[in-house]
């Protein structure tokens, strides 16, 4: 066991990389704390919802791009992953419109 481990060269901690990870972590924490402040101060409505959606997209961007390292991968790989998920936007629009229509039919 000991001889095995001695063959492996352990490189020293990359301080810059760790600092970058901590920076991203702090951004995620700050955004979440900001979401809490908004949750308790603003009344429900379009503005509140849009702030939450923007904050969520910011958090998702940092997790996917930095933690999952996608921002540093090849362009082709990035598009292979991002393009199909963009198509979900239409699913959201279509189903929410459908839901509102059902509600109109049912209750008005």
């Amino acid at each position, binding site marked *: 066991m000991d001889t095995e481990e001695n063959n492996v060269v352990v490189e020293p901690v990359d301080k810059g990389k760790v600092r970058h*990870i901590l920076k991203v972590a702090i951004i995620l*924490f700050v955004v979440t704390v900001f979401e809490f402040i908004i949750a308790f101060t603003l009344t429900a409505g379009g503005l509140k919802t849009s702030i939450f*959606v923007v904050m969520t997209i910011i958090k*998702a961007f940092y997790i996917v791009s930095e933690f999952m390292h996608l921002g540093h*991968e090849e362009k082709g*790989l990035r598009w292979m992953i991002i393009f*199909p998920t963009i198509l979900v936007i239409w699913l959201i629009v279509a189903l929410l419109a459908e839901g509102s229509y059902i509600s109109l039919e049912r209750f008005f």
Partner: protein
Amino acid sequence: MDSTATAATTTAKVNQWDGGKSPFNVSYGKLMMWIFLVSDAFTFSGLLVSYGMVRFSADSWPVAEKVFNALPFTHIEAPLIFVGIMTFILILSSVTMVLAVEAGRRMDKKGVEKWMFWTIIGGITFLSCQAWEWSHFIHGTGLGGASLTSNEYGPPGFAAFFFFITGFHGTHVLSGVVINYIIYYNTVRGVYNERGHYEMVEKVGLYWHFVDLVWVFVFTFYYLV
């Protein structure tokens, strides 16, 4: 057609796609993990968007922060506090996972062991919190609680989607913890030192961050909005 332009694009394409190397510059396993995650993202989008549709078609909907306002060991009203703690725990375990990946790149076995250990602890803590949250939600406040068919807080769809979405996410966390444990076990045994690289840690890392990513969306669209 301009012949020189065609020639230029052909050479550019040949360089990247003529075989012998991965055009995306990632290993087979990592690429497959990404493709799996894209398909899993569709499953979660399907669940969350249908939740949105049912919510839009209902005439009233409970305010989630009024439903989930309890804190373990206390009787105070604390809207969003407990779920906020859960969110921080999951983000924190994502951070320890990146640190494990970073240690793996340096072939630092001790570092990978340490950070994988904390990632597993974070995952287990999150699952325990969720178990408490479910139990509290099911038992309710003395008005019948919630199940798949009935719900004291409002439309049954609210409870059904809560069980489906957080349950499906919780199952992901559970399998993530199990996979993380297997990787931790292999690291301790020295499997990856022998193999000469710690790419398996990167692959489970992708999965674990995805679980965190899904929680970010569930948190927003189930608890905040």
